[in-house]
């Protein structure tokens, strides 16, 4: 008997109300190059399985890396024992699971060139070349290239009869140039985050050109001026920057486990409570946030989540109004939903799946509008590119963001670079201040690979996206 069937048969025979098993092999290649020194060149491979058992409305989860019949049976029993212990302190009258059926299916991230088949020497040579380009600028004192490639191969089975074979892959290259003067140190980074694509995507990025661009901009930035005291201003936020703001101020507040208070002790809760569904003006009428776990290249795109629920597409915010959450089979029924949206994901085999942000993006504007036209239409504002300082309260209301590159806009033109810029805002003021979004010709995605959440902590991943958008009347100023 195969291990999947053995585990499910054992769970059923021991009286589990529901059980699933996820056998997972995760391979991660990391290369970290700093100033031509290879600080890390590593390949990590971990392989094991996690078994969830649901009994009398409570969970138990046990994991192991020993693949024998005896070990599988012991792991199922361990999960059942602690599920019974969980049942001594039940959540309400006990958790219930949203309806789902079994699936027999497979999914594989589409790609042409597997990054694990690209020789290390080729990767390092490319990275060294980029590093040398950055260091050829006299004021660039630190040049960093980080490359991460990760592959997850999962076999999933549940007592609902599911048998899933899921293979996902992503690559994340990041280059950073830091310029240093007598009095300051400023960095500029090129990164599109992680993308579920093959090595051909890295080849298409023209990283040699990007290395020149970010070096020049880091030097520009270190010599740039800043703003004075905070005042209300117009902001233009590029998709790369907005990925972070939407992650923090829309993605996390609309995770149903947070809304329900399941993260109250650590990551926090949410102001976006269930009575606001269908009536809360989260953003202006042109603001539409789409959850799409079928997004091509998306990091949450995997065919199914880690409890066998198919990937889906739905609106979180439609015409500015809060519509729905991202949820799981255990959280959805608590607010009266019959089905899960499939957002339960785990990072490694030994991790318990938790409610995660789906791939989430701001829908492009419906009117034709290019970034050049939007800048030309802005009299006085600040254009922010890339990610910088970020901090948000544990209810996801008050936040302060920086950025990676800043430009002052006067009379429809970028007139000078700036540094050390911060803006402060609140939910729902921020997304209600949007008065223009460029069309889909400038839509870009950014894959987050380091979303920290959970106790014990897990490193989740998902993709965000959007087109250049304009925010009016935001508090903007320079740092101290």
């Amino acid at each position, binding site marked *: 008997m195969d291990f999947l069937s053995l585990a499910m048969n054992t769970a059923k025979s021991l009286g589990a109300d529901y059980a699933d098993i996820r056998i997972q092999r995760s391979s991660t290649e990391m290369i970290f190059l700093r100033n031509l020194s290879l600080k890390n060149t590593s*390949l990590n491979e*971990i392989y094991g399985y996690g078994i969830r058992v649901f009994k009398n409305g409570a969970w138990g989860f046990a994991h192991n890396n020993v693949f024998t019949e005896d070990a599988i049976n012991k792991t199922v029993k361990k999960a059942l024992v602690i599920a019974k212990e969980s049942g001594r302190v039940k959540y309400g009258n006990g958790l219930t699971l949203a309806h789902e059926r079994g699936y027999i299916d497979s999914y594989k991230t589409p790609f042409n060139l597997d990054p694990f088949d690209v020789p290390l020497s080729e990767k390092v040579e490319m990275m060294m070349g980029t590093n040398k380009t950055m260091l050829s600028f006299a004021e660039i004192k630190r040049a960093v290239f980080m490359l991460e490639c990760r592959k997850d191969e999962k076999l999933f089975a549940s007592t609902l009869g599911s048998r899933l074979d899921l293979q996902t892959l992503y690559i994340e290259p990041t280059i950073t140039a830091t310029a240093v003067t007598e009095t300051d140190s400023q960095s500029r980074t090129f990164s599109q985050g992680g993308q579920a694509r093959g090595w051909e995507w890295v080849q298409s990025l023209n990283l040699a050109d990007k290395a020149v661009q970010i070096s020049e901009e880091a030097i520009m930035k270190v010599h740039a001026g800043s703003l004075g005291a905070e005042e209300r201003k117009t902001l233009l936020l590029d998709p790369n920057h907005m990925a972070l703001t939407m992650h923090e101020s829309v993605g996390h507040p609309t995770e149903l486990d947070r809304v329900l208070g399941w993260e109250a*002790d*650590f990551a926090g809760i949410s102001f976006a409570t269930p009575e606001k569904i269908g009536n809360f003006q989260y953003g202006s009428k042109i603001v539409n946030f789409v959850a799409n776990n079928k997004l091509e290249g998306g990091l949450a795109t995997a065919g199914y989540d880690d409890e066998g629920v198919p990937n889906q597409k739905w609106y979180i915010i439609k015409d500015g109004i809060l519509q729905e959450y991202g949820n799981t089979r255990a959280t959805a029924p608590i607010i009266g939903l019959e089905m899960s949206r499939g957002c339960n994901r785990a990072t490694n085999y030994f991790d318990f799946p938790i409610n995660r942000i789906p791939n989430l993006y701001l829908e492009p504007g419906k009117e034709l509008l290019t970034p050049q036209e939007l800048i030309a239409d802005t009299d006085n504002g600040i254009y922010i590119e890339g990610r910088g300082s970020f901090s948000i*309260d544990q209810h996801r209301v008050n936040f302060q963001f920086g950025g990676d590159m800043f430009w002052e806009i006067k009379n429809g033109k970028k007139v000078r670079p700036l540094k050390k810029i911060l803006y402060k805002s609140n939910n729902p003021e921020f997304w209600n201040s949007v008065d223009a979004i460029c069309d889909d010709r400038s839509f870009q995605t950014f894959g987050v690979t380091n979303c920290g959440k959970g106790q014990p902590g897990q490193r989740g991943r998902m993709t965000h996206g959007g087109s250049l958008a304009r925010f009016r009347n935001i508090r903007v100023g320079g740092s101290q």
Partner: protein
Amino acid sequence: MITRQEMQKAADFIRNHVKADDFNFSIGGAEELFTRFAQNGITQHIAGDKINVNLNVSFENKTGEASSNNLKEDALKHLIKTAESMAKLNQPDPEFVASEPAHDLPDVDNFSRKTADLKVEKIVDDILKCVKNAEGKNAKLSGISEKRIQNSFLTTKNGFEGFDQSTSFAHSMTMKREGVETKVSRSVKDHSKFNLDELIGQLNSQFGSLKNPVQIETGKIPVILRPAAVLNWLFYLIWTYDRRTADEGHTPFTDQIGKQFFGKDFTFRSRLDDPDLEASKFDNGGIPAENIDWIENGVIKNMSADRYYARQNNLKALRPYNIIVEGGETSEAEMMRIVKRGVIVNNFWYIRPVDRKTGEWTGLTRDGVLYFEDGKIQKSLTNFRWNEILHKATKRILALGPVVQQEYYAKIPTLLIDDFNFIDVTTF
């Protein structure tokens, strides 16, 4: 859980089969139990053993590293093949450092039998006690209990060999009712020193003091930072407290070694001989831990340095393995009489750098804020955002409280700091 003997056997296999010029081989094993609860019920319960096997090899100064979670001979052969193949394909590392030779390791006991023997039934009993306490206040409780046993082993081609075994138990809980929420947490290496009743008492005391929080105007306000807040800030100080980044001009610590850079009342150390605190015997490169004075009366004495940078600059390779901030004797009640008015902060949240060069950070308050005036607590406040140059804030320390054990690796006092820069408020 993996034993020392199994680790030793794997190390022998590696020694006999590695062809590379040099190697570092480490094994980390852990037995873990995580019992997580929310809204007065257990929502997550995880049990299992983990293992991490890591091999770093080099041919001259070309390096490669591979890791896995398997100690079988086939897996170790694959590990060697992978690491050696990577090293052969790699380019030379100009900052390569040969592995450590044999060292005498400090005599530290990081293991507690009481913690190792802790059963799931006892943990669930204690959670039930905490939940009943919350229910008695019509409140909801969320948190986690974590039990961990860890074995660490490291050996090198050049003769280093070290083994360490440690235990820890941690319990945290957040109690919430309508607009009031507060949290307590504690971790210890020896579970017999964990006092649940005292922690519940602290939770009840904090919870009871918070009622109908109101907003006040922001500005530079004296603040009493309780130990959890001070420790939260220190994590971020430690993150940037590195000699090389200072010397290269990226942080405010450039050219400040030996100088009075922090306030004269601020002293921060790592110590091997504190019986309550874990002190791992060696780091992942094989450098033995030693007593370190990081900051003494505000003067920067030592900063973290890796083995390469330490060797190049005739420094010691150092890292903080535990955190002790020197305290004083001023009680919180006495602190409230030192300044006319101020706020008491239980904890900070989401601290991030605003400007690494100046050392400016942002963050928020969390888990309850109180306003005091004329020596008495007057009301609860909603949370603040602050932007502050934290090393400068240590120059405004007005008083220090007695040191308390906040975590199994940290002893921290309460601090009274003048003119803390609160710049915004939030709605709760």
